[in-house]
């Protein structure tokens, strides 16, 4: 009774909620926590992506059967690693909204008066984290299977940088494209058809940087720093464009 | 012919094939596109004629 009178005195009416509207950052944290908590409970995305990565590596085993020369694999290693990451991320991104669609969450989220781009940020962050988790598994696996023959260059730990930048870009644009293709026919093919051409410049830059990190080179600025700067530029521009356009897409 | 002159123009005949092929293909694709558009226009005009018939038939006779 006292609470009701207090609320009425605050002017919100007898049944007005007594909390203020959460800030955008809090909304973002809530959405992100929802995705992460769901993943921790079911682990379905991580397991499926992890097993898929392992299977791709096994296909590589067959594909590289005749490459006896260790240096070839070292030079191709960067590219092969990124092929692995692209296809695994296609799998993960295609399923990023599956739960929302199946359980009807999307309608619920749309009812909340929030800036729709927050949904984009939360989902993109969740995808980045999942993808990074898969990479943490996939890169050592890749090293174990293919690269223990020859010693890697001392710059090997530097592959963290292109992996990070590439993952951020791919998750950002992949989340936007996943939202677009969520309701179309043949959505996985549609996602791949849109995703791969748009991601090509980022992929190219990251593969270059990864390859020189693995094999070592004397033109460090040309082949490592410049691609990373360009990849960073790509990430910033694309994430900005997707941020601005997301509202239109998710409300359609 | 002077062998050096022959050398100067040695790439002309082999490349002529590709140059001609390039231009011919471009004009061919352009022609195909224009034909496609004009056929679409004709088809739409026929459909308009059919629709006009239908409108005339569906309107009850005046007077």
């Amino acid at each position, binding site marked *: 009774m006292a609470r009701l009178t207090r609320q009425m005195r605050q002017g919100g009416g007898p049944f007005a909620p007594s909390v203020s509207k959460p800030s955008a950052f809090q909304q973002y944290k809530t959405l992100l926590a929802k995705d992460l908590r769901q993943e921790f409970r079911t682990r379905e995305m991580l397991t499926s992506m992890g097993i898929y990565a392992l299977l791709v590596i096994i296909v590589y085993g067959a594909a590289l059967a005749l490459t006896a020369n260790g240096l070839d694999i070292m030079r191709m290693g960067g590219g092969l690693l990124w092929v692995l990451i692209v296809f695994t991320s296609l799998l993960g991104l295609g399923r990023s909204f599956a739960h929302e669609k199946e359980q009807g969450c999307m309608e619920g989220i749309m009812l909340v008066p929030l800036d729709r781009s927050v949904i984009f940020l939360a989902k993109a962050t969740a995808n980045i984290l999942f993808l990074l988790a898969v990479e943490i598994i996939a890169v050592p696996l890749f090293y174990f299977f293919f690269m223990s023959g020859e010693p890697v260059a001392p710059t090997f730990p530097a592959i963290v940088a292109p992996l990070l930048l590439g993952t951020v870009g791919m998750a950002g*644009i992949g989340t*936007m494209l996943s939202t*677009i*293709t969520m*309701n*179309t*026919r*043949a959505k996985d093919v*549609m996602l791949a*058809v*849109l995703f791969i*051409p*748009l991601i*090509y*410049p980022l992929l*190219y*830059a990251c593969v270059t940087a990864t390859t020189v990190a693995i094999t070592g080179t004397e*033109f460090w600025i*040309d*082949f490592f720093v*410049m*691609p990373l700067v*360009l990849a960073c*530029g*790509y990430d910033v*521009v*694309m994430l900005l*464009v997707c941020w601005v*356009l997301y509202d*239109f*897409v998710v409300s*359609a | 012919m002077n062998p*050096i*002159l022959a*050398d*100067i*123009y040695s*790439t*002309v005949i*082999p*490349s*002529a094939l*590709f*140059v001609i*092929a*390039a*231009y011919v*293909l*471009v004009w061919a*694709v*352009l022609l195909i*596109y224009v034909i496609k*558009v004009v056929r*679409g*226009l004709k088809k*739409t005009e026929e*459909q*308009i004629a059919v*629709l006009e018939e*239908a409108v005339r038939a569906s309107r009850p006779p005046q007077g």
Partner: protein
Amino acid sequence: MSKGKARVPEAGQWPDRLAIPALAAGTVLTSAAFLLAFLYAAPVNGAALDAPELVGGVMVTHQQLISQKIFYFHMPVAIVSFAALAFAAYYGIRYLSTREARFDTCSRVAMEISLLFVVFTMVTGDLWTRFEWGVWWTWEPRLTTYLILMLIVIAYFVMRNAVDDPERRAVFASVISIIALVDVPICFMITRLIPSSVHPVITREGGMAPDMALTVVVALVGMMLVAFGLYRLRFREARLEERVQALKEQLDG
């Protein structure tokens, strides 16, 4: 159309009166560029000769190539296809801000023109590469960027087919066209700035002589006019189809 709404592009308006003269002018100009390319622009130097030779009063020290003549059409069509993409994205932005379905039609037609000119670019570029470098494909920045552009435009049309609801389709198409417009220059820059053995940067045409520049400019203006004429023609057809569809629905309903 109520007076309060913003002006919306329609077929049969004043640009159509310009379309036929534009097509004619474009044809004239491109033919002129064709003739200029072969008769006026100097042939490009190829491999060095063993000994210099006097030809027509000029000391010639290299093989003369005519395969480079393809370039005079290759670059203009590439520029026109990118310009068409820019128009498609512009109409996409206008659709998103006004939700007028007419802008979606404009965007779609512009994308078709872009696809047409990208096909031209790929054909000419590929044949040029085949002769110059002896391979059917080389992952050089320009060809790769245009392959990516072609794939994006094809993806645009595949996506348009996959969505049934017209308003949703229009929103998604506009978004894709804007993303594509942003992505293509980045792709070009990245493949150009990162050195690689697989992606040779072909800079033979960097630093153009005035006669080459004139031919390219004439061809470019001609191609732009042709593209404009084609756009109006296709737009007219698209509008006609839409009006017939609307009439059919009115008759049935």
